[in-house]
């Protein structure tokens, strides 16, 4: 029998892996991938709670909005990364270093 906890564990694994990616990778695109993992884990939580908990659809609708927001965010982020690349020829975060102090 698959219970809520099964899904929560998968989601916890996704969340931690996403955070690991965010903390360890130095490439902007890679950090974004980590963020996507975190968002997916949260969505999985929302849907699982909607299925096993209250039974309302609020979780699912929330998840739809999260997906839409993620798309907008990635579009803007990649535009910025592309501009950075055009200006610096790299998307490595360590190269973004002129703002210091």
């Amino acid at each position, binding site marked *: 029998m698959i219970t809520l906890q099964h899904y929560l564990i998968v989601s916890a694994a996704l969340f931690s892996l996403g955070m690991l990616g965010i*903390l*360890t990778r130095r490439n902007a695109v890679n950090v974004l991938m980590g963020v996507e993992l975190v968002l997916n884990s949260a969505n999985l939580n929302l849907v699982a709670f909607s299925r096993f908990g209250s039974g309302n659809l609020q979780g699912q609708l929330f998840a739809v909005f999260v997906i*839409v927001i993620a798309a907008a965010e990635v579009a803007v982020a990649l535009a910025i990364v592309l501009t950075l690349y055009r200006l610096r020829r790299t998307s490595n975060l360590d190269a973004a270093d002129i703002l210091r102090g």
Partner: protein
Amino acid sequence: MNAEAAVFYVFGAITVLSAAVVVLARSLIYSAFALLFTFFGVAGLYVLLGADFLAATQLLIYVGGILVLLLFGVMLTHKLYDLDLRSEVTQFLAGIIVASGLFVIVIFVAVRTQWATGPGRPPSVTTAEVGRLFMGQYLLPFEAASILLLVALMGAAMIVRRRRDA
């Protein structure tokens, strides 16, 4: 082990393993392609949870939109033959410690907590209901999201476009 459990373990394994590849792969491009399987696995879990509309949305937007954008980002910001896209592993140890700490805490929370119990929602058709909610209770966020998309589209185009005088 019944069919549901089998399907769950298959999709769960796909999700988690490919997510691990996303995070640990040395080549950026491998991470990006592994992400495809993560999204796919999550979509499978959605189906299992009875969220058919959401699963299709996941495929459409995450795979067809976000992943393709990310792939474009990877390819446009790296020289074509730059196979060795290794990232430095400087903070790897610290990252592992923090992430596994988080993992333990979140698992502990997930298992120990008494989550809200209710009637639950046996897998059923959701599309019509989702549509009605979008046009009813969720009208405000729905419209707000459309403004957000408009602004993001405009903003992204503006950022990438070169200056008028350049």
